[in-house]
C-alpha cells in the first residue's frame, strides 16, 4: 500500500472515526503481522495464535498512532506487535501454574531490582524490594520464587536470520573456558549450552563476576541472568546424568 493511501486511511479512522478504514489498514498490514509471528513460530504456540495476538497489537498500534509524528505506521506498529506476541509468550511460558497477580508482581520486581541495584550500587534486600513495590516481604519471596518457573529463553532469540546476532564475546572467554579442568563435569556440560549461556557461566564461575555485572555486560536483567544460570546448571547436570547412564 502506498504511504499516501495509508495516511488517508489513518486520517479517515483517527480523525473521522471510519472503522472500515481501520479494517482496511489491518487487512493490508496482516502480511507484516504474519512475518513477525513467523519469527516466533515453532516454540510451542500455534502460529495462527501468534498471528491473532499480533493482529491485536496492530489494532492497538493503529489506535494509538499519532498522525502529527510523521512516521510510517509500519515503523510505529512493529514494536507494538512484537510486544503483544512476547506478552503472549510471557503469559504462556511459565513452567508451572502461577497466579496472574504473582506473574505481574514478578515482572514489576524484575524492573525494580534492576533500578534499585543501579540506585544503591548493590543488590537490594527483600525488605527494600518490598517497600519499593508496596507489598510485604512474603509476597516478594513468593513472586521471586515464582519467576524461577518462567522459561523466557525463546523470547530473546527470535528465529530470524535477518536479526543481527547479539554480540557474545565468546572468543574473549575462550581462555577462561579452556582453563576449566579437562574432562570435568563443567567442561563437558559447557558443550551443551548455547553461546550466551556458556558466556554467562564462564563470566560467573571463572571470571567471578556478579550477576549484576554480567547483566550490565550482556544487556539483560539480573533476574534473567539468574534464570539463565539456573537453566545452564540444570542443562549441564542433565548432560552429566546421560554420561553416567551410558558409561
Amino acid at each position, binding site marked *: 500500500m502506498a504511504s499516501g493511501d495509508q495516511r488517508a486511511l489513518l486520517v479517515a479512522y483517527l480523525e473521522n472515526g471510519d472503522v472500515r478504514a481501520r479494517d482496511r489498514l489491518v487487512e493490508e498490514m496482516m502480511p507484516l503481522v504474519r512475518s513477525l509471528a513467523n519469527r516466533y513460530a515453532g516454540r510451542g504456540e500455534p502460529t495462527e495464535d501468534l498471528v491473532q495476538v499480533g493482529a491485536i497489537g496492530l489494532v492497538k498500534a493503529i489506535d494509538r498512532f499519532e498522525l502529527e509524528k510523521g512516521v510510517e505506521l509500519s515503523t510505529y506498529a512493529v514494536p507494538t506487535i512484537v510486544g503483544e506476541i512476547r506478552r503472549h509468550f510471557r503469559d504462556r511460558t511459565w513452567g508451572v501454574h502461577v497466579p496472574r497477580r504473582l506473574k505481574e508482581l514478578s515482572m514489576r520486581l524484575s524492573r525494580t531490582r534492576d533500578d534499585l541495584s543501579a540506585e544503591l550500587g548493590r543488590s537490594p534486600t*527483600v525488605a527494600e524490594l518490598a517497600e519499593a513495590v508496596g507489598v510485604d516481604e512474603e509476597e516478594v519471596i513468593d513472586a521471586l520464587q515464582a519467576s524461577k518457573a518462567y522459561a523466557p529463553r525463546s523470547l530473546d532469540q527470535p528465529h530470524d536470520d535477518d536479526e543481527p546476532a547479539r554480540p557474545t564475546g565468546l572468543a574473549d572467554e575462550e581462555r577462561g573456558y579452556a582453563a576449566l*579442568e579437562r574432562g*570435568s563435569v563443567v567442561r563437558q556440560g559447557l558443550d551443551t549450552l548455547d553461546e550466551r549461556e556458556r558466556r554467562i557461566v564462564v563470566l560467573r*564461575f571463572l571470571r567471578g563476576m*556478579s550477576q549484576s555485572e554480567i547483566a550490565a555486560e550482556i544487556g539483560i536483567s539480573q533476574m534473567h541472568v539468574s534464570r539463565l544460570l539456573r537453566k545452564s546448571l540444570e542443562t549441564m547436570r542433565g548432560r552429566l546424568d546421560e554420561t553416567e547412564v551410558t558409561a
Partner: protein
Amino acid sequence: MTEVVSITVPAAPGWSGVVELVLAGLGARLDLPYDRIDELQLATTAVLEDAVGPDVRVDATASADGVDIRVGPLTAGAGDPGRRRVLDALADTVALEPGRDGEMWAVLTFARDGAR
C-alpha cells in the same frame, strides 16, 4: 544469636523449590541482598542434586556474620573438581566432610557481604 533451620525433603526433583523458599525466607530475615539469597539458593540446589537419597537434609545456621549450609548425605560425585569450582564461585567457603556412616556432606558458608 544463632538460629538453625533444618529441613528434610525427598531427594527427588521438585523438592528443591521447597528448600529454596525456606532459604529465601531465612535470607530475608537476615536482610541479605537478593543476589546473595539467589546464590545461596543456587549453590544449595546444586548440591541437592548429589543427594544419595531417599531423603536429603539441609541445615541452615544463621548468624550475624551470614549463613552456613550443611547438606547431605551426598554421592561421591559431589567432589567433582568442576562442580567444586561452581560452588567455590557461589559460596565463600566450601568443604566436604564425612558423616557418621561414611557418607559425604557439603558445608557451604555465605558471609553476609559475600566474598566479592
